[in-house]
């Protein structure tokens, strides 16, 4: 907590908020300035239970945190299912610091790798590009593509070597805008930055870049690894994105993963289109291996583009020859859960119905006392079945299906 950390998701009482630009300006809860309030100690929240143990309380708090983390907005709003995201990774000298273990760049690379996997799992018909910035320059590691392997490979190859100089946010954003310029109008255009440096070394006026970003409807979000920087925050805020500062490795993962579900469409200019898509047939009956157009490697199996009859090795992707987006029907079905999200479960207090968790069948332990954090149960508002916390998180993050409602 030594750093000026801020996480808008945590505005409750037991959180020590030492940030001075919180939602309520500089005023605290009781009308005074935040620094006039009594200092809150994080360890005061923890009280011993009857047997003198603090284990149950700590478990209860961590359960609450986990539950809070996954409460999502479930309103049926229009979301940009077809996304174009440019990931900007800071490769400046400041990423060598060891405040995140083992170093900032290593921690960031692990998280970015996980993010890319999750992003393509949840958004199978979306695209991603990766840009790295160091020495006042921006370099495109990968172009917009729908294949996670390309990005992971490029990151593994280039990203953690030669950290040097200062980053240039302006150059990186200009390059990102250039990359996103040819993205079709029906898709969203987003930039996600992972920055460690407190400075940016720019060739021109970054305010003009900000105006250009707004004009091009690019949404910029950032996870900073050190502290809040005015210009970074301003860019995020004015383009409709979010700015976060990561407190630790776990927190960084949560903040980065907030960019995984597609953001709602707020802009009136967003257009809807009919997109031409190809549904290729899997070909595995050939006697002789043939090269694929995406990696030029020999293989027996592949998918044949229905328009130009070239062979690609995995779906979903864009045909490298004719540019037709190639998907399979299950991938479209995979995106439906963003349109019809599962409802958030509510914690049950008293009046229990089921004798065990409806998901994993774990029988509830002794009847939980309302005053203690024994077993938390969560109930689906639609099917009225009860679930344990594990299943609750699993259902909403991985399965996207309520076992009781289907």
């Amino acid at each position, binding site marked *: 907590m030594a750093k000026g950390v801020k996480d808008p998701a945590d505005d409750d009482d037991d959180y020590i908020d030492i940030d001075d630009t919180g939602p309520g300006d500089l005023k605290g809860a009781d009308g005074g300035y935040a620094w006039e309030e009594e200092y809150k100690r994080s360890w005061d929240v923890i009280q011993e239970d009857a047997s003198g143990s603090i284990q149950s309380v700590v478990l209860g708090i961590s359960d609450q945190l986990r539950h809070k983390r996954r409460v999502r907005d479930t309103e049926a709003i*229009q979301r940009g*299912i077809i996304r174009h995201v440019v990931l900007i990774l800071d490769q400046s000298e400041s990423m060598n610091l060891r405040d995140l273990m083992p170093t900032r760049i290593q921690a960031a690379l692990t998280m970015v790798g996980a993010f890319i996997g999750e992003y393509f*799992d949840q958004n199978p018909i979306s695209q991603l590009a990766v840009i790295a910035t160091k020495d006042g320059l921006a370099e495109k590691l990968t*172009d917009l593509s729908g294949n996670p392997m390309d990005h992971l490979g490029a990151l593994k190859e280039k990203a953690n070597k030669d950290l040097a100089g200062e980053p240039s946010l302006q150059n990186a954003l200009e390059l990102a805008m250039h990359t996103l310029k*040819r*993205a*079709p*109008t029906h*898709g969203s255009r987003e930039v996600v930055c992972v920055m460690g440096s407190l400075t940016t070394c720019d060739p021109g006026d970054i305010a003009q870049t900000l105006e250009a970003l707004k004009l091009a409807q690019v949404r910029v979000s950032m996870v900073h690894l050190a502290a809040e920087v005015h210009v970074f925050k301003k860019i995020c805020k004015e383009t409709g994105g979010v700015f976060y500062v990561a407190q630790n490795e776990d927190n960084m993962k949560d903040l980065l993963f907030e960019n995984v579900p597609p953001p709602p469409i707020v802009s009136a200019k967003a*257009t*809807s*289109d*009919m*997109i*031409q*898509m*190809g*549904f290729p*047939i*899997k*070909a*595995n*009956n050939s006697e002789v291996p043939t090269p694929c*157009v995406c990696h*030029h490697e020999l293989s027996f199996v592949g998918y044949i583009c229905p*328009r*130009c009859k*070239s062979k690609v090795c995995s779906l979903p992707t*864009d045909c*490298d*020859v*004719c*540019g037709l987006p190639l998907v*399979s*029907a*299950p991938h*479209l*079905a*995979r*995106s*439906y*859960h963003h*349109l*019809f999200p599962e409802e958030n479960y509510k914690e049950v207090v008293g009046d229990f119905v089921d004798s065990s968790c*409806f*998901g*994993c*069948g*774990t*029988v509830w332990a002794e009847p939980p006392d309302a005053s203690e954090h024994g077993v938390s149960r969560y109930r689906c508002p639609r099917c009225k079945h009860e679930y344990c916390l*594990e*299943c609750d998180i*699993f*259902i909403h993050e*991985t*399965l996207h*299906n309520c*076992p*009781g409602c*289907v």
Partner: protein
Amino acid sequence: MSEPLESDPSLLVVVLDVNASAWSKSPLTVGNALQQMVIFINAYLALKPENKLVVLASNKRECKCLYPVDRANATIERDIRVYEQFRVVDATVLSGVQAMLSGAEETVGDPNRGIEEGQTLMSRALSKALCHIHRVVDSTTSKVWSRILVLSAADDSPREYISLMNTIFAAQRMSVLIDICKVFGGDSVFLQQAAEITGGNYLKVDTAGGESMLQTLMFTCLADHYTREVLVAPTNETIDFRATCFCHKRVVDIGYVCSVCLSIFCEMAPVCSTCQTKFSFRIARAESAQSNGTLKQSPKPAAATAAMSTLTLS
């Protein structure tokens, strides 16, 4: 994701379809199929002492966990001649299925929400199976490789399509294999896709023609993740992942997809018939811009393929 080791234990979730009306059409009786399944389960448990088992049964109304059950209300007499674990599993599974089969007839006509006679709550069963797997994998420190075996009897119900796809992709992400054993009736298109996407086997056993279900199970589904890497699985004919359009139910190669609701159409229309969105007809421009970009900027296509694509486009 690490590679499976020979010593890693497995978790098998058996999903039994106990839809009485579907089984009535089967050449193989429920009892017979269950006997063979129980032998298979015993063989699985005998392979490795650490192997874990969950048995779920599902019909058109409910989905129950048959094993493991709460030990308190399970009263099974001991038999000194039989290995204790086999006996417990056999007795609980058989009595559980019996209870579900006899209970199903009494409550015909209750609100089963559009599920027709002869269809089963398969997506609920698979969702619960994944919850069980998640719980077991989460609570054990060592690596456990999980798979699901479905003994399927009933037909697909179209309203389950999206929820089944969700479970299939969740399984794929957790590296859970889904094996399907279909004993009679037509092919289940949804379950075929489940096996194909997760890397499991889709087995169609011709019991009327004299094939033994037990033999097929033993030879293909008993192998764990480690062993499957060196075995040659029975091949399936190519599975068609092409989509059918919403307007004419035609199978399409190249379709048009609404960017808002992802409905598939076989021809251009000014308004999406599903979500009533009006389209802005920029399709030609957007697409040519995109493919031009691919030509200019993507470093990958070699000169030859670039020349080819200009040919196709112009």
